[in-house]
């Protein structure tokens, strides 16, 4: 009789389970197998722990090999017993209950969860998520209700979060990166996933870092970097895994990040093999079962003396959270020579992105509709030439030559209570009812519902509703979309951002069906502005969506240098400020110093690298950015007024300074310039500014919508104010109305021409409640933006320097 080979296996997980299955099924008589497992049980389907956690399955449902199976196949089981040492020279392993010798040893110890080294990590109530015991501990904890914090927004963390929420806990996910599952998903899919999880009551905190877990005797709260503390009866750490290599390291095997194996799964000791998540092959680690099953097949063939070699293949990821349908495969990042195809269908909440390189599909990310995932995955794995189906590729196998997304779907997808007309508070449902009741054109809809009857910026949306409701019976007037990335006009875009409460760029791209990954130089600055104007607290200005001047807080010159214009409030300066400007001009070799048309001084020709330095110097003298570059408040020109002038009626200089100090820092659709003159002689040229104030004996004449640039236009009277405060209020309310309603890059005079001065007056002058609301909204926004960007820029000086200097290297 043939001598049986003695095989010892350390770890009864998913990888070794497959190896043993292969061995006993094809060559039961050749092997004598001893199987150690630290867990109290044999092999079960670990990836189904999440359904067990959420209550959809029980442990019994997910057992792969039960006691009977091991008995039938003659496997000696030593469950609940850790292997503590491998003696490679003696060819024995030491279990907690005694040694056993081997001819061939298989290490299949999987991974250990990574624990972030913060204070409190060892408190009771802090759990990792790896095995059945962890799962049971979470189920037990959840029975008391309360709140849970899951640290880590990757696959495991989110499955844990969803399961705990399902069991009634209040769950917050704390994630270090900018979007969820950043290794598998791009920002767009990450946004959709977040939206769906939030809809089921889970709070998501991205870019949040854990400082400590606090509690008296057990976990009570998670403390973030920002010193905010999140209550937590249960803390789940799911921040990643690392290969369990301790036995191999102690035994002197070659170990890098994982136990190093060759393509036959053999370690540096010819009689020791390793398989599963504990191995490293050719620099790769593994965290999903598909490649582990390949490894298992190769290892069993190797043990049976058949030639086989393991090769790394692409893997695909899905998340096992019901209702969050996502799929990602291949490589969707990092690429010279790569091209994107993007499809978004807001009505169905669908996003798909394909990444193509040299006529081959190399990556796919999709959300909402993942039915074609495997088809795309196959194209990736087979490196199929997709040149011929490129045009229709994104529609999947069934729709080769198929349809495209309807630009109207964003409007079609709106709920009935979405507000369409902001002026009159008219919702979609009311308008649709009117159309169905016979209002077949814009005029009739206006007459019956008042929608689009006031400022008119929602006209485009009302027309789209006519089209969606009436179909071909309605002839859409052609309107100019923002740019080629979308089908919406600026007005529609603004209205939809408000009514759908879109608070991030990703939300806009997805919900409004953008055709590009993240817009272009035309639409992105506009979207950035609309978001920050409508959601000042939730959304922050994104410098990467701003034209260079507004990102660098200086005007770029034709030779790539910059100009620097410090603010001179109301045109007033003093010797100390002038001295600081002169010193800075000397110190930074400023070639040109010029007095501007806006009553201040321009330092032209400053090198980009010097900007933070010159700002710091000017800041020391109390000088701040003059925003000579921004779509925001520029200057408030004043005359000397009643302080000095023999004709002056009021303190025009003082009012100008007050207005400048209130308005500075705010972002507006285009630049905003003010003038305040002390009498109708108008030395401050107030009547050709966006807002001009003429002081008279009886008070202040506030006029708006002037221009002296490409068009020359006198201001039109907005209203008269008896007091200085009222003049200020009218000014702020006008600026805020402009901020809330105008199209990006429309100067105030262009916007007023569109909506009509009468409507503007009705909001700013006549309706005192609306005036108060506008002022309050402006103040809220200014609580974020009324600050000096130079002071912040000066602190970030290194980012203004070149990333590296290779002048010496390249010269070789």
């Amino acid at each position, binding site marked *: 009789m043939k001598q049986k080979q003695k095989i010892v296996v350390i770890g009864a997980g998913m990888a070794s389970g497959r190896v043993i299955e292969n061995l006993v099924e094809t060559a039961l008589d050749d092997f004598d197998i001893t199987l150690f497992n630290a867990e109290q049980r044999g092999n079960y389907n670990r990836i189904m722990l999440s359904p067990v956690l959420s209550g959809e399955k029980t442990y019994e449902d997910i057992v792969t090999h039960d006691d009977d199976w091991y008995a039938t196949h003659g496997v000696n089981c030593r469950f609940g017993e850790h292997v503590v040492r491998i003696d490679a020279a003696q060819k024995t392993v030491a279990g907690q209950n005694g040694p056993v010798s081997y001819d061939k040893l298989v290490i299949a110890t999987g991974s250990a969860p990574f624990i972030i080294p913060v204070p409190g990590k060892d408190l009771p109530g802090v759990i990792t998520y790896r095995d059945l015991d962890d799962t049971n501990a979470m189920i037990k904890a959840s029975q008391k209700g309360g709140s849970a914090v899951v640290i880590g927004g990757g696959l495991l963390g989110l499955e844990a979060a969803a399961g705990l929420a399902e069991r009634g806990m209040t769950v917050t996910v704390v994630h270090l990166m*900018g979007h969820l599952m*950043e290794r598998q998903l*791009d*920002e767009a899919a990450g946004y959709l996933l977040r939206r769906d999880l939030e809809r089921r009551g889970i709070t998501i905190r991205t870019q949040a870092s854990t400082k400590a877990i606090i509690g008296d005797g057990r976990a009570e709260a998670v403390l973030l970097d920002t010193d905010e503390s999140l209550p937590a009866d249960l803390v789940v750490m799911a921040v990643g895994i690392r290969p369990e290599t301790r036995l191999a390291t102690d035994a002197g095997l070659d170990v890098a990040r994982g136990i190093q194996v060759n393509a036959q799964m053999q370690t540096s000791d010819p009689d020791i093999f390793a398989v599963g998540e504990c191995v490293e092959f050719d620099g790769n680690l593994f965290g999903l079962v598909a490649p582990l099953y390949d490894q298992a097949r190769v290892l069993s063939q190797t043990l049976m003396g058949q030639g086989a070699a393991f090769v790394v293949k692409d893997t695909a990821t899905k998340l096992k959270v019901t209702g969050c349908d996502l799929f990602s495969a291949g490589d969707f*990042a*990092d*690429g*010279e*020579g*790569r*091209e*994107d195809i993007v499809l978004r269908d807001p009505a169905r909440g669908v996003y798909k992105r394909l990444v193509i390189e040299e006529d081959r599909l190399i990556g796919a990310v999709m959300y909402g509709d993942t039915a074609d995932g495997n088809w795309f995955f196959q194209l990736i794995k087979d490196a199929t030439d997709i040149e011929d189906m490129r045009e229709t590729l994104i529609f999947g196998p069934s729709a080769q030559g198929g349809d495209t997304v309807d630009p109207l779907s964003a409007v079609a997808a709106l709920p009935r209570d979405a507000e369409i007309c902001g002026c009159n508070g008219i919702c979609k449902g009311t308008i649709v009812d009117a159309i169905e009741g016979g209002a077949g054109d814009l005029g009739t809809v206006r007459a019956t519902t008042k929608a689009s009857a006031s400022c008119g910026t929602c006209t485009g949306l009302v027309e789209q509703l006519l089209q969606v409701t009436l179909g071909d019976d309605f002839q859409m007037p052609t309107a100019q979309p923002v740019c080629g990335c979308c089908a919406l006009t600026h007005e529609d875009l603004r209205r939809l951002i408000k009514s759908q409460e879109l608070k991030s760029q990703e939300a806009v791209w997805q919900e409004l069906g953008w055709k*590009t*990954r*993240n*817009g*272009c*130089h035309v639409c*992105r*600055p506009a979207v950035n502005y609309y978001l920050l104007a409508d959601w000042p607290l939730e959304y922050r200005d994104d*410098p*990467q*969506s*701003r*034209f*260079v001047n507004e*990102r*660098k807080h200086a005007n*770029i010159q*034709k*030779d*790539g240098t910059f100009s620097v214009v410090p603010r001179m409030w109301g045109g007033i300066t003093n010797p100390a400020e002038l001295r600081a400007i002169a010193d800075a001009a000397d110190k930074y070799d400023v070639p040109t110093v010029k007095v501007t048309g806006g009553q201040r001084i321009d330092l032209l020709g400053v090198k980009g690298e010097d900007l933070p330095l010159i700002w710091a110097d000017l800041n020391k003298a109390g000088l701040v950015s003059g925003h000579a570059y921004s779509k925001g408040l520029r200057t408030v020109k004043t005359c000397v007024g009643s302080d000095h002038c023999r004709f002056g009626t009021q303190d025009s200089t003082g009012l100008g300074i007050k207005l400048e100090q209130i308005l500075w820092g705010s972002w507006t659709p285009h630049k905003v310039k003010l003038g305040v003159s002390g009498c109708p002689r108008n030395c401050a040229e107030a009547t050709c500014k966006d807002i001009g104030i003429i002081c008279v004996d009886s008070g202040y004449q506030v006029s708006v919508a002037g221009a002296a640039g490409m068009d020359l236009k006198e201001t039109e009277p907005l209203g008269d104010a008896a007091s200085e405060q009222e003049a200020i209020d009218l000014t702020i309310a006008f600026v805020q109305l402009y901020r809330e309603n105008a199209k990006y890059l429309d100067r105030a005079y262009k916007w007023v021409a569109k909506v009509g001065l009468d409507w503007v007056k009705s909001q700013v002058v006549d309706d005192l409640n609306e005036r108060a609301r506008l002022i309050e909204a402006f103040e809220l926004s200014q609580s974020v933006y009324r600050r000096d960007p130079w002071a912040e820029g000066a602190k970030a000086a290194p*980012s203004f320097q*070149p*990333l*590296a*200097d*290779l*002048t*010496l*290297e*390249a*010269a*070789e």
Partner: protein
Amino acid sequence: MNWIDVGAIEDIPLRGARKIKTALGCVAIFRTGLQEVFAASNLCPHKGGPLSEGIIHGQSVTCPLHNWVFDLNSGQAQGEDASIPTFPVAVRDGRILLDGTELAKRSAA
């Protein structure tokens, strides 16, 4: 290949760019996605605009001076008969690597 480490990927903001000085002029490094990085000449062939100051969208950059749009894969300018040289670049363990040999060869050409 002669990979030169020029910095950490976090040193460039998402959808942002930084320039690198070389003896043969500045090279712009663009970061379009979490790990997606491109390298190309910093100099716009139109009137010399600094491309690292442009707006980066998809896999393109728009020149800050007069809005020419360049595909970062090919260097081709949209709708213009002009292009910028692009250079091999890689990201490994969070570091950006630029191919020095290629850089010297192409800039010299």
